[in-house]
């Protein structure tokens, strides 16, 4: 079984975020980066599938500037076999179609049986790359996967639907599936893993050497920090009226009912 895992490096949750000068991204000073949470679960799932089937290869692929190699290295110390780094100069690529195209054209020749990715990235949260990539490489696709069962030519997955519903479905391999956080318990790089990772290969490809199909479907115009406003409204009147008004606010403004 040959498994590819897409991992993205994102600013870690506690990093203080400030906008950069151009207003199109965040300033990276004082920001620490971590592997996107659900990607860490995807990697763990890949390692478990490899251990369960007893053979195969897990390849970590990442897109981003030089710093993402640290994330790839972390994956290698946890047990992945090699890494692929599409190196770009920009700190981010915001168009999921472009990202998927870059991955597709880089990974096509790898002929993965399975590609796992996190459900969505913690920074942009678009949640599309896994499915797009699957389509581009003519794989079966599934999203929001909470459990997997692998066999020779198929993978059975449990998907999270809305309202507490689940769906079990079986996909033919090759397949690209996106993994929900919490599906397993990610491991920690052992000392031996860290030592071993030093000898593992990371293949680096410059982004402009990859055919991107020329198409950018989305451009990011502006990022901004959500405005926090304090609003106090006094509701007056009889108890009945107040309650009716409150329910109305809960339904319409706060949307909790």
């Amino acid at each position, binding site marked *: 079984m040959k498994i590819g895992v897409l991992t993205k490096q994102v600013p870690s949750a506690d990093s203080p975020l400030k906008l950069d000068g151009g207003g199109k991204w965040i300033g990276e000073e004082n920001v620490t980066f971590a592997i996107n949470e659900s990607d860490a679960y995807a990697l763990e799932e890949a390692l478990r599938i490899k251990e369960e089937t007893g053979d195969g290869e897990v390849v970590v692929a990442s897109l981003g500037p030089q710093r993402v190699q640290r994330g790839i290295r972390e994956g290698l110390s946890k047990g992945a076999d090699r890494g692929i780094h599409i190196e770009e100069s920009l700190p981010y690529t915001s168009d999921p179609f472009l990202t998927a195209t870059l991955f597709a054209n880089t990974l096509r020749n790898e002929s993965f049986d399975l590609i796992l990715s996190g459900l969505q990235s913690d920074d942009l949260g678009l949640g599309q790359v896994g499915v797009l990539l699957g389509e581009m490489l003519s794989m079966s696709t599934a999203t929001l996967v909470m459990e997997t069962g692998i066999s020779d030519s198929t993978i059975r997955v449990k998907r999270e639907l809305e309202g507490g519903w689940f769906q079990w479905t079986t996909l033919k391999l090759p397949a690209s599936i996106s993994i929900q956080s919490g599906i397993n318990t990610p491991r920690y790089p*052992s000392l031996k893993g860290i*030592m071993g990772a030093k000898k593992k290969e990371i293949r680096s490809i410059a982004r402009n050497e990859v055919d991107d199909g020329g198409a950018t479907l989305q451009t990011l115009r502006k990022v901004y920090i959500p405005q926090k406003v304090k609003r106090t409204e006094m509701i007056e009147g009889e108890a009945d009226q107040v309650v009716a008004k409150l329910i109305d606010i809960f339904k319409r403004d706060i949307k909790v009912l």
Partner: protein
Amino acid sequence: MTFSLLEKTVLAIIIIGALGSFFYEVVRRLRIVARGTGTLPLDRIPQRLIRTVKEVLFHRRVIGGRFWPGLMHGLVFWGFIVFGVVTLDHFATGFGTPLLSENQHHLYSIVVLPFSVLVIIGIGFLAYRRFILKPHTLGKISLTSGIVAIFIFLLMVTYIYGEMSPPLLIAKVNWWLHALLVLAFLVLIPKSKHLHLVFAPFNIFLRPFDTPDHDAVKIDLEAPEEELDAMLEGLTHLSKNQTLDVFSCVECGRCTDACPAHRGGGILNPKHHFMLDLRQPLLDGGSTAVLDQINIEAGWECTACQACTFACPVGNQVEKSDEIRRLQVLVEGAVPQEYQKLFMNLQETGNTEGAFHSPLAERLPKFTPDKEYVLWLGCFARYELDPNFTKSVENYARILDSGGVSYGILEEEWCSGDPANRLGEKMTFQMLMEHNMEQLSQVKKVTSMCPHCIVNLSKEYGKFTDIHYRVEHHTQVIASLIDQNRIDVSSKAQGAITYHDPCNMARTMGEVEAPRRTLRTLAPDFFELEEHGTNTLCCGAGGGLWWKKEGTGRTHLVRAEQIVNSGAETVVTGCNFCYGMFNQGLDPLTPEGRETVKVKDLADLVAENLA
């Protein structure tokens, strides 16, 4: 009494058989001990001898920990010593060469007879406790213990009877019975917990002076792979001291009784998990590579408080959470998620919280070489893990100012490494240590309010390199400022006020006096909690457990409960973690209508009473 040649031959054969069995079993265990890592320490011999006399001959810990059972054990023990000569003489008589003349024998029996009665009382009480009262702590009823109790009883009875000049034939039977009992005892001892008779004195003599006494794990990522493999393999081995501990354990359960995790309803039972679970694997495999047998879940529950080690009457260093955790982290890579986050923070930002900015550190003066002390904040204070504690830090700063002490903080202070160290992430610990050692390279004195930092900056770093600076806890600095009249404090009634000893100060650093000197000056009527000084009970935050997700156990509430029940209005402590735990724990435990106990750091109390 005379013995025929046949009798003498039989006696000799049985003696040789019993001694053979005894030595075979003892040597078998000693050979396993010899395979342990490290060496048995033989430094400071006079101190070791004094300790051995106190703890073995005078039973200081045996009686100190549990008065009545300890005293009764003492009766049996002292009886045994007195009986040594009697027993040798008994067998010598069997070969027709008694050691004592008739007269000497009679004179000595005047001493021995009362002792034999005391031994009967002692063993009677102990048997009553074990088989009738059956305290939970002793565990399952053991057959050998029953047999041993009966043997000891019969030994005494046969001795007393023999002294009453019975008719010759009966005297002969009685003599043989006594002899056979002694020899049977010899066979039984090494195969049971009664081996402590032989090992405990040596174990107490050889006990390391530092508690805890975990080996430093030195990681060199540049070393060749075989070296690393050997180092990792070594992590599964008990040291010689630890192996001797396992064979010396008398299964009394005092360690478990003292254990906050156990008392809080956790699964951790140090007697089993850190001692007895290792005994059979040692004997079966003959190798000391048994640390992977420790229950992992139990290992994560430990607060590393060292109460177990201090409670052990045979001198065992009981706690082994360090050993099992480092195996889990470094070898298995199996780390609870909350700790993975913590480790990542430490690696990325050098602090436990993943923080980039400390408003408190910005307000405090910076260290320059002309200043006397580095004020070491530690992550708890620096990143305000309990925002109330910030005022305690400022209070300490005020005290230092008032005493004319110059101090400053290090801007590049990183976590001392305590949580990484105690949770088994030795590589991150080493990384933090190396950074901090560089920051401290020109420093002569460090003072900190965090006992966890104190232990690491001094003892733990000291395992890697020579430390050239002195580390003083704020309770020590304050006490000496008062002693030298450098600060002016007034004494006044403080209401019902008590002191909670942080484990790291009391047990690891051995400091219980300094805070009390200050308390006696400020609040002469302060009272002691039942478990205080080196007997203190952990607040629940030690061993990295501050960052643990809430589990099922109530480890973090046991001490808080004691404080609520003590009737104190104020509890003073000397550790930011204890402070934080009580601030969270006391209020929900306080019965309705009663005021919540106030939590203060010693610095708060002193600052409030600065003249």
